[in-house]
């Protein structure tokens, strides 16, 4: 099967079209305004349940990127959206008497997006009905039962459990219960991914020792894949539930009733059978009762990361170490390779010069993210060059920034007056010595401020390497922001670290510049 689903822009267009259709419910705009006004008289706070009924659609947030079998675009028909959650949402909506409307949103930000900015009423995205998630939002009764599944390569006898991995590496989805479980295992190297596809690829390539994921994901991705196998039975069973905003009690009750009905009348059984997901755990869902200890989310206080800085600052600083070394190594490569490119472009014979120009234009003219994917996944797939994530990250940053650096140095070289070369040659120096002794020292002084700018820019750009599973500062911020719900507190600490580090770099260069002058 095709393991890689690029986010499809078609889904967004479809959303817009559906927005257009929802106007049919109230043909006269002023009538709608009036209704809303009357409604606001009845309830102090607008009820999402009434909104949905008024609008005639339930907007549910999810992430179709690498979302099989939940929500995904099938490779043979990329304009369609399918998945067991799509079918579940359709069934749920038809019970509620409204249309179903999918809203694409990044998995990491689904929960904060529910509170604001997400433009969706509920989340249906394989959200675990965990104590952690219940602290952040209201959750419906379960619509699906899942377990944790360890996956490893077919040629591995061991491991059968997380503990068997020792100090090995395991890939997990960020913000998932797998992430929580793996992080709690001492000694284990946890690599965090933003989607459910790329860790399997890295596992195949030997970049990971195992993947810990939800059973449906393991099931879909292992089907027909002879290289991978499940390791041990599923464990840590849990439930997926619909996520709602706190206070949406009406909607919660209606959704709970609808789910119960769908479970009892066999609609969901049909859906899950269609995707090969029906099992004993799903059959037990109608009998589910909430634990008596479950507290409503409003009674829980949001955690303040600033107050708990002793916990969060070291975590962020550890991630900052990755940011710093990736940037320093990347910039070192960029400076060396860029310097060579600039010299070749400026002084080498024509064919070499053209090659340098082509390199510079291509690497400047294409996105860094694309280059990173190409180097990390593309080279492994095409040539079997199995680079480690750290190496690939440094390589991508270095090769990309080398193009920028080359142009910096060229500007520096060209800014040195021609007369300087002539004066050096007139003294009897060879061209090479003239460049080394006279041109380069002056060109470097001219280029230095731009190099500093690029260093600081790369420092921030390095956050992009989280897409290949490197846990750097911005990624850690996302994870901890999600954990605590305190985006401002964690954000302030993260920003402070970025600021202090980049300001220190500027100061360092300023001192260097003064010494060179």
């Amino acid at each position, binding site marked *: 099967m095709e393991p890689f689903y690029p986010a499809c822009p078609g889904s967004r267009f479809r959303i817009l079209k559906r927005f257009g259709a929802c106007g049919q419910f109230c043909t006269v705009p002023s009538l709608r305004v009036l209704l809303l006004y009357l409604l606001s008289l009845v309830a102090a706070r607008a009820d999402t349940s009434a909104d949905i009924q008024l609008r005639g659609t339930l907007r549910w947030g999810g992430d179709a990127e690498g979302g099989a079998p939940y929500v995904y675009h099938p490779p043979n028909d990329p304009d369609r959206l399918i998945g067991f959650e799509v079918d579940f949402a359709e069934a749920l909506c038809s019970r509620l008497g409204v249309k179903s409307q999918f809203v694409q949103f990044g998995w990491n930000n689904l929960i904060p997006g529910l509170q604001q900015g997400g433009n969706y009423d509920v989340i249906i995205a394989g959200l675990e009905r965990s104590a952690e998630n219940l602290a952040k939002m209201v959750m419906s009764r379960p619509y699906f039962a899942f377990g944790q599944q360890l996956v490893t390569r077919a040629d591995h006898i061991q491991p059968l459990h997380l503990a068997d991995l020792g100090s090995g590496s395991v890939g997990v989805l960020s913000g998932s219960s797998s992430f929580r479980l793996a992080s709690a295992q001492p000694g284990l190297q946890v690599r965090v991914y933003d989607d459910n596809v790329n860790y399997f690829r890295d596992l195949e390539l030997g970049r990971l020792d195992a993947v810990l994921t939800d059973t449906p994901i393991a099931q879909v991705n292992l089907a027909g894949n002879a290289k991978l196998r499940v390791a041990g039975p599923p464990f840590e069973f849990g439930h997926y539930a619909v996520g709602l905003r706190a206070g949406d009690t009406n909607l919660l009750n209606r959704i709970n009733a609808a789910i119960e009905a769908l479970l009892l009348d066999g609609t969901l059984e049909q859906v899950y059978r269609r995707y090969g997901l029906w099992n004993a755990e799903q059959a037990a869902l109608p009998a589910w009762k909430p634990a008596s200890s479950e507290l409503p989310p409003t009674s829980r206080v949001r955690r303040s990361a600033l107050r708990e800085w002793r916990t969060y600052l070291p975590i962020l600083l550890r991630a900052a170490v990755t940011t710093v070394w990736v940037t320093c190594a990347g910039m070192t490569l960029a400076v060396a390779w860029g310097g060579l490119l600039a010299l070749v472009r400026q002084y080498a014979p024509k064919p070499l010069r053209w090659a340098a120009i082509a390199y510079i234009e291509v690497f400047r003219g294409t996105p860094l993210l694309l280059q990173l994917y190409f180097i990390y996944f593309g080279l492994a797939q095409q040539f079997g060059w199995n680079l480690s994530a750290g190496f690939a990250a440094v390589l991508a940053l270095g090769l990309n920034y080398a193009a920028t650096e080359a142009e910096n140095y060229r500007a520096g070289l060209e800014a040195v*007056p021609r007369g300087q070369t002539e*004066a050096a040659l007139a*003294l009897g120096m060879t061209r090479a010595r003239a460049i080394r002794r006279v041109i380069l020292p002056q060109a470097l002084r001219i280029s230095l401020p731009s190099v500093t700018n690029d260093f600081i820019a790369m420092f921030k750009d390095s956050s992009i390497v989280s897409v290949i599973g490197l846990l750097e500062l911005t990624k850690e911020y996302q994870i901890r922001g999600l954990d605590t719900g305190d985006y401002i507190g964690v954000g302030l600490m993260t920003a402070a670290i970025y600021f202090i580090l980049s300001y220190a770099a500027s100061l360092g260069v300023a001192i260097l510049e003064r010494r060179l002058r």
Partner: protein
Amino acid sequence: MSTSPLVEIRGLKKQFGSTRVLRGIDLTQVRGECVALIGPSGCGKSTFLRCLNQLETHDAGTVRISSLTLTAGETLHGRSLQQLRQTAGMVFQQFHLFPHRTALENVMEGPLQVLGTPLPEATALGRELLAKVGLTDRAHFRPSQLSGGQQQRVAIARALAMRPEILLLDEPTSALDPELREEVRDVLVRLGDEGMTMVVVTHDMELARRLADRVLFLCDGLVAESGPPDEMFTAAKTDRAREFLRRVRA
């Protein structure tokens, strides 16, 4: 000292694209002689000078400087090119001092980098030459901290540090304010008195009068007239030279 001329040039030609800049220049110069090249802008004076140390390569004619023969259309290589540049030192209109080095380091750069002179000797030579151009107290100044006249004197010292047999000077006083020209003229005249051979391209008639044994008037790529400065400046034979001299003096 050998009696044969230091410089012998016959029928030197140079063109840039279709523009014929030099159309056949002859020059014979003995050791210790100072020749001034004057003439309207764009008549090829600087190009002629640059052909002598091969910053440009001439297209036709024969050139011999000291023991080196320059072939038309060919640039010398390796050691011979270095030897030519060492034999014929050059001073530029815009000085072209190395801005990232001090006055002393500028003077030492050639001996250290090209001749491989040990540091103590190069330093001693640098100080001696700075003293010669009257800049002992400016040894550790950067070019940007020096006046134009001082910079040009450092540039002369830098050229002398290679112990050249001949000095090529490309408008050495043209970039200077009038009151600063005199200090550069004094240095050059003193060098001439000490027996340095020089070819100076200049619009500075005062410099030509004080320095030159012979003045060549270049016009349209040819030597239109030549003679001792007094004769040339008071009784030029050609109309072009008289016209030119009247204009530069006005």
